[in-house]
């Protein structure tokens, strides 16, 4: 492991853990989905409102779990708020690329570690050290998987 444990628990991650953004729920017709990590019991439920132009107009999360899973959900919600589904797809794939998982097809979907800090994934870039802690990658992707599942309920807008 080249990263130290302090790299995993950066201040910004603890801040999102202690003061999660966009906490709460939305009423139907918001799409929702729940993701669960059976290994540790972490859970996240997500609600997403999408307008007729395929723009994410609101996103809310609720859940319980470790700092990584909960902070990652909070960071994701701030990143995706107001994004079009096409933009969200790019963010989604770039995040997975940062963690060394998933398939990327274009340059804009691949996370560039040399780019200025915060320019690609905002606060969520603080999670890039998770890649060095393989057992925690599932924690970091939990909320993102819930988001993907929520959109998957309607194949027309699926990522």
């Amino acid at each position, binding site marked *: 492991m080249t990263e*130290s*444990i302090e790299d995993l628990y950066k201040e910004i991650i603890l801040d999102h853990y202690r003061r999660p953004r966009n906490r709460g729920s939305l009423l139907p017709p918001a799409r929702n989905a729940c993701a669960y990590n059976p290994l*540790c019991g972490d859970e996240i439920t997500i609600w997403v409102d999408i307008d007729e132009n395929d723009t994410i107009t609101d996103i809310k999360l609720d859940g319980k779990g470790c700092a990584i899973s909960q902070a990652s959900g909070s960071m994701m919600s701030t990143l995706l708020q107001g994004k079009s589904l096409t933009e969200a797809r790019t963010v989604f794939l770039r995040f997975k690329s940062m963690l060394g998982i998933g398939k990327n097809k274009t340059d804009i979907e691949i996370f560039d570690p040399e780019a200025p800090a915060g320019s690609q994934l905002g606060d969520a870039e603080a999670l890039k050290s998770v890649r060095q802690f393989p057992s925690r990658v599932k924690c970091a992707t939990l909320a993102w998987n819930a988001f993907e599942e929520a959109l998957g309920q309607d194949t027309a807008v699926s990522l």
Partner: protein
Amino acid sequence: MTDLASRIRQDFPILQRKVHNVPLVYLDNGASSQRPVQVIAAMDEHYRMHHANIHRGAHTLGEESTQAYESAREKVAGFVNAPATHEIIFTKNATEAFNLVASSCGRFFLSEGDRILVSAMEHHANIVPWFMVAEQTGAKVDWIPLTSDGQIDLEAAHALIPGAKIVACTAVSNVLGTINPIAEICAKARESGAVSVVDAAQLAPHLPIDVQALGCDFLGFTGHKMCGPTGIGVLWGRTELLDAIPPFLGGGEMIEIVDFEGFTTAPLPYKFEAGTMPIAEAIGLATAIDYLTDIGFDAIRKHEVDLLGTTFDMLTSAFGDKIRIYGPQDINRRSGILSFNFGDIHPHDLASILDAEGVAIRAGHHCAQPLMRTLGVQATARASFYFYNTKEEVEILAHGLEKAADIFGI
């Protein structure tokens, strides 16, 4: 008190290694213990010099392997004080032992409306097979509740046992470390005509077992938590019941005759040992039993109680209200398992921070979700000790917790 640990630690090569450039502190023995060179050497010797399939070919290696495998069975019979050697059935693990009992008992004597009584501190291995058999037979699963300090509510147990067909209970909780009054529960079950099924997975590594004194009907445990290899477990059952219930898995070895109409089963214990069994693993388990018996369960228990007392004192004096330890506060009522939560730090985060200090603990629900719900928590951190752990290692654990407190600002 570190005399025992310092004397035998060199038997465990893995305890000499480093993780993240610091010495390994292995406190995840409740999940799986480490194994001494004696066990590794016995399995190595079997594969190098003696291996062949058992109970088959009339050749030297086949005879040597059969002899070693059956000696292992005798060793286990002595270890649990079984009245007869054929009452020892080798399985893959404790989970398979309970699946065998549940499946075979289910087909033999459970039917719609029957009550299966399970304690609220069971591992999923002694819960899920019962749910599965309940689904198949129409029987229903009922729960023995716990007291607020994590012990079996005996009064409730006494009231619930009459009328139940099965009473499934763990001898030692894998989460709380609680040592249950299993003889009393089994006596009540026997008096009421219920079949008792005891999970001894966390008992066998730490305390002597006497199935006759416990008065149980079935008892299961696994090899890898008691210095033995993975892939080998044990089911002990009373002859009368093992004879009565149908076989679990079908295949070679468990039959007497197969013809175009069907099959007849082999006598005990082979009736329940279908296919080629884990031969080297059985030999490894027998060696582990010798190893533990040589050290002595009195010495093991004394060492673990000392260590548990030290840990309780050290953690509560260092962290006060920040640390919440679950289960009985009386260390004489628990084995070397310590489940806790630390401030608002999630156990998963704690485990990562401790790992960076070389300390291996378990974080999560420990395959005991009904118990987690009873405790009102999502997860706990669990440090579980064995006779090779030392006070110095407890100090490193405490130091790791200090570091976690620093990082999370609690």
